[in-house]
């Protein structure tokens, strides 16, 4: 339940934002993080951004998550 995944913000409106979740666009709340701008990476949990992330770290996490099915697991 505590799973959180990196997402990239593509539109910010006050404490709400649209995030790109590897191709899926989701409406999220940014009330828990400092003011952000499109292009920023965040850690997303249950519709809430809970932390801002460095782009390189976010990309590395996605690369490992994407690779999981090839090793027999589910993403």
């Amino acid at each position, binding site marked *: 339940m505590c799973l959180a995944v990196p997402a990239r913000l593509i539109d910010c409106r006050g404490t709400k934002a649209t995030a790109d979740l590897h191709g899926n666009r989701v409406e999220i709340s940014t009330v*828990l993080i400092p003011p952000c701008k499109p292009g920023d990476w965040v850690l997303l949990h249950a519709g809430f951004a809970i932390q801002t992330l460095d782009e390189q770290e976010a990309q590395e996490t996605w*690369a*490992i998550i994407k690779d999981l099915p090839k090793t027999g697991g589910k993403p």
Partner: protein
Amino acid sequence: MSTVILPRAEAQTKESLRRLRVAAKALSRPVKFMEVCGTHTMSAFRCGLHSLMPRNVTLLSGPGCPVCVTSQGDIDQLIELARDRAVTLCTYGDMLRVVGSEGSLEQCRAEGADVRVVYSSLDAVKLAAENPRREVVFAAVGFETTTPASAAAVIEANRLGLENFSILSTHKLIIPAMRALLESGDVQVDGFLCPGHVAVIIGAAVFEPIVQEYHRPCVIAGFEGPQIAAALARLTELVVEGRAALENLYSQAVTEEGNRAAQAIIEEVFMPADWQWRGLGKLKCSGLALRFAYARYDARTRFALGAPTGRETPGCRCGDVITGRATPIDCKLFATACTPVRALGPCMVSSEGTCQAWFKYHHLRTPKKVRAGSL
């Protein structure tokens, strides 16, 4: 990008496992570490980490899966609410199939109850705003990672002046559970693999008392295989060095003080309460109840729910499994009467439960002589 990253992750994992093996050889006795997060449980099993570990180092699953630690009485209260024809019960998907004393939320839904799976707590608030004639109740389940979302939902409902929204809080705190486990003395835990996303919210420093008062090393880690392997290597090295220390290997997301905005929103809406846990009993100040200022959003008061009681499924050992006292194969129901398709206990229901992880990734590969005993 992944053509560069993945070989590096693989190299990091190999190096961590090498360090783990070297440190394990220097151990004077077998050690047991415990993770206290359902996401760690599933991730470690999924990437086959248990099969790569030295025989004298064991990773136990502790009380970290929110679905699994929710008491039978709390599940019964959710089911009681769902059966109320005036109620629309909103829940995260994890709770849907958990079996209470009589049935599950999924069965209630099949019988006509209005049970909705939501992705975010704010979806429940939106549903309440759009359906003023329905009583919308949100099942507020989870540890500190999930709690700010519930707090934000209550604040949003208050801002909108909603009269038909409430939550049933079973939110729990991880530190009291870790303390209770160590104080019970009946489980050997030589160090903790601490939950990365809980630490994002509460901050790394909160684990310091476990190190200072109980002299157990604590290592905070992320959730991918390479990160868990690195944490296990570090924990083993700390035991060999005879040092109880707190180390943060997830510094890209976890800070010393945590997410202050999230802590503030939790503090505004919730207050500590004595909460009942599966397997651990009632623990002092281990949960979060709504503060008096937000008491009108408390479903327990609004629907005059009685004190939770709850009847455990006969033979189910989930309580022992989530406290490390037993492994799933010690339970007679495991992989016989209790399977992911027809789960009897929450640890088999939950996609992060220890029993489901063992069933999917572990037990058929475990040698018979090991399956007959514990890990």
